[in-house]
């Protein structure tokens, strides 16, 4: 079998004609086989190894959480004046990652970008797992974890209600709504594909599980009709939702009065950054996964190329925001603002700031070159840089402003503890554990959706479908 990456030679793509969304002369049945194979094949050894490593880190995370709860947040590097350290950095980082999934599944759907079908299931799964990792951090950061239910507005003998004018409260609502809606969206998209796995499996237990979760789906056209309407509505709801979530996360900073946080550019800038980091994460996951699971026909180089373009666009927006922050700091005439930004770029955290600039602003510019955005291994490397850069962005924002506030006598240099580092790695362990389970047991590509946009080789009359897509 020829390597689909080679067969589809993007560089020679004639102008005005787009390469098909599914390459490699697939019929409906062979497509079903290719995707289902991922969930049906004998578990490969590499999967076990990767899973063991991930689960090990989940274990470390678990020990960390128990230690944290029994001892207190002092095990982290938090001390005066930096009380928002790594946990919040990690929280914002993971929530941001999640955004690409919803963007792909909802916003591209509304814009009728059919190429999304190859990667949306993947990206949505990533969203959900990233939001789980994100939600972990504020959850354990609140100190007395066992009182976390005080965040909920429920009648109680203390006559104590949440304070709805606080951005932190908005955050609770935004993140939990985001998680719930993403889960519904993801699960609903999966029902027909779960039915596919149900109808193919030979195992009783798998049949029962897939049967249970596919809810008796039988592909009825009357059901499809309502299903598509519901899907469109969910997409229309998820699109503004995803924008609201990172906006509200940015309010956690912007609504406070700390120089460097108190800026109106934060909401759009955070959203752009979130999409930027999320697409990088999709590439980091998709490039190895498509090679490993033989999905190169479905997640084609065209998909990867499109994502690289999004990365360059959002990366440039983020770069613009960094510049704008400096401009406004100067233009505002506020000495504190000016100091905050000069301190960011030239102060004790200059190393972090310039790491961020080179990863976020400079590295994605390589995708202006066609070679760079069509070569999977290369974009994988760049995507890792972007991930690192985006983590540092949150670090720079959170820590530089706090460590040098209005009162020079309380200035201090923030240092993370070993536990800070272990929690971050542990959250990656959790993310990959969930992701590996997803790859093993669930349909990794939206089979039914891809069938709707593909040009099957058989029956042959469908060949003209491809030309239809072009226009």
């Amino acid at each position: 079998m020829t390597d689909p990456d080679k067969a589809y030679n993007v560089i020679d793509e004639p102008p005005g004609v787009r390469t098909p969304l599914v390459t490699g002369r697939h019929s409906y049945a062979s497509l079903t086989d290719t995707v289902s194979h991922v969930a049906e094949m004998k578990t490969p050894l590499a999967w076990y190894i990767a899973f063991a490593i991930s689960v090990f880190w989940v274990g470390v995370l678990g020990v960390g959480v128990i230690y944290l709860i029994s001892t207190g947040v002092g095990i982290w590097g938090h001390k005066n004046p930096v009380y928002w350290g790594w946990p919040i950095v990690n929280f914002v980082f993971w929530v941001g990652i999640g955004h690409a999934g919803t963007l792909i599944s909802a916003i591209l759907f509304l814009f009728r970008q059919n190429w999304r079908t190859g990667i949306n299931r993947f990206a949505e799964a990533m969203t959900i797992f990233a939001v789980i990792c994100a939600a972990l951090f504020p959850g354990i950061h609140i100190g007395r974890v066992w009182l976390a239910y005080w965040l909920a507005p429920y009648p109680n003998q203390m006559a104590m209600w949440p304070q709805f004018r606080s951005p932190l409260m908005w955050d609770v609502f935004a993140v939990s709504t985001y998680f719930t809606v993403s889960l519904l969206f993801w699960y609903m998209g999966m029902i027909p594909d779960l039915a596919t796995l149900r109808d193919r499996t030979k195992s009783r237990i798998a049949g029962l599980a897939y049967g249970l979760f596919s809810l008796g789906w039988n592909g009825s056209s009357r059901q499809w009709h309502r299903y598509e309407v519901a899907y469109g509505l969910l997409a229309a709801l998820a699109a503004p939702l995803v924008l609201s979530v990172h906006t509200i996360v940015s309010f956690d900073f912007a609504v406070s009065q700390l120089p460097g946080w108190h800026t109106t550019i934060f909401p759009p800038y955070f959203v752009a950054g979130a999409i930027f980091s999320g697409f990088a994460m999709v590439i980091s996951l998709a490039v190895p996964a498509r090679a490993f699971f033989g999905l190169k026909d479905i997640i084609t180089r065209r998909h990867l190329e499109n994502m690289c373009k999004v990365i360059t666009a959002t990366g440039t927006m983020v770069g613009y925001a960094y510049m704008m922050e400096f401009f406004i700091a100067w233009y505002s005439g506020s000495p504190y603002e000016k100091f905050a930004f000069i301190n960011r770029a030239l102060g004790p955290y200059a190393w972090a700031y310039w790491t961020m600039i080179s990863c976020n602003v400079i590295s994605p510019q390589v995708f202006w070159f066609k070679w760079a955005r069509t070569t999977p291994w290369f974009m994988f490397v760049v995507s890792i840089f972007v991930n690192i850069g985006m983590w540092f962005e949150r670090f720079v924002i959170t820590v530089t402003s706090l460590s040098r506030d209005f009162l020079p006598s309380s200035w201090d240099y923030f240092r993370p503890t070993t536990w800070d580092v272990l929690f971050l790695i542990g959250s990656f362990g959790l993310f990959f554990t969930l992701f590996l389970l997803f790859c093993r047991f669930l349909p990794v590509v939206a089979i039914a959706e891809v069938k709707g946009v593909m040009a099957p080789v058989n029956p042959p009359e469908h060949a003209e479908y491809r030309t239809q897509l072009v226009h």
Partner: protein
Amino acid sequence: MADNTTSSDLDEDLADVAHHKDVTFEPRLAGVVAEFDRPETLIASSAAVRDAGYTRWDTHTPFPVHGIDAAMGIRRTILPWIVLIGGLTGTTIAIAMQYYMNASEDAEFGLGWPFAGYQYPISGKPYWSLPANIPIAFELTVLLAAFSAFFGMIGLNRLFRWYNPMFKLERFRLVTNDRFFLAIDSGDPKFNAQELPGMLRSLGATAVEECWDDEPRRLPSSFATVGLVLFALALVPPALVMRHRSVSWDTPEYHPVQDMDFQMKFKSQQRNPFFADQRAMRPQVEGTIARGQMVGDSRYYLGTEPGQAMASLQQPEANADNAGAAGSQELRATDQAAAEAGQTGPTPPAGPPAAGMNENQNWTDEIPIAVDERLMARGQQKYEIYCAPCHGLGGYGDGLVNRRALDLKAPTWVPVPSLHAPQTRKRADGYIYGAITQGVRKMPAYGSQIKPDDRWAIVLYVRALQRSQGAPSEDAGNP
């Protein structure tokens, strides 16, 4: 399955099932299923089946085939309306919730019972400022709309029904892969099991099968029993929790989480070996004067001439504080006695004084602070706040509280006397001051609420009131 099973096989199967599950039922022809290999043929056949007048039928496809809705005549779903209602409900709940929990206690905004909720003062921000409430309103709108979309779809599609007789057809498994099906239900008025296969084949079906439903229609009877038992068991934990919460316990509370309940410190009645007398609560250092207990100048603080034995009056404010609590029981006792004796009217009831000052003291008859117009104005203001509710603005004892108590014929109420009564006019200034500070007979003490300067201001104002009523004629000519 039904198609290629001989009848004897079927009978055996059924006998088997019937034997095990102890349920009797008949296999039933559920419908006829035709298979197509292309979406185009399916669309064309759908139009034909619809034109032929069938009503209870459906097509089944691996992905949504575009154009089939029109061919089948599927009407647009009402789902968007459900979602709209869900979303609006979310907005309403969010706004009402935030209003109730953070902003509704105030009279300015409050709608009164039952909408009077709570108020949350946060750094002087307005209680109700819509922009701050929009994020949560938005999130709940989306959340409830999304729930309506999802569960609305599940509900309208009856996706909670896992079973379908078509799942028994081996062939039908391909419906989620690459085949297209058209199924006509046996309940259709035009259903004819003999003619349908031929017709469907002529439309281009690659295969036609009968679909038999051989599952019992009823749940096995054990389901109900098991369900009931489970339900009853599920009630046990909440019942235990409720009981636990409503019963009083003499064993100490179980403390899984320490919070700050146990602290390394001494409480007042504990032993502290550090001190020679081992008392954790230390006595005051000699010569300490607690706040508000500075009564050195007896004229100013007590209203009495100096030299009086002050033993019982050393802490006027503490006395005043206690008057309500300590005196209240005695009060009730005397009131009852008074009520039984049928005593009403302005004369104070007999018996020991319930609270308040010792009336026979060497009261001072001068106001010990500088008297000027400002003091008078202050006195009027304080009198109207503290005294007028009972004694009335003019001092005639016709305050609102008194009138209402008399209207209600409250049995324990002693009518408020007029401050213009001859004996009261004759009282020394210090007496009135003492009445305010320590209370007099049934009148409670106000010493804890009114500062000495203000008490004297009130005395001055009461004096002015008294003089203004029934003033001697020589006052009239002297403006």
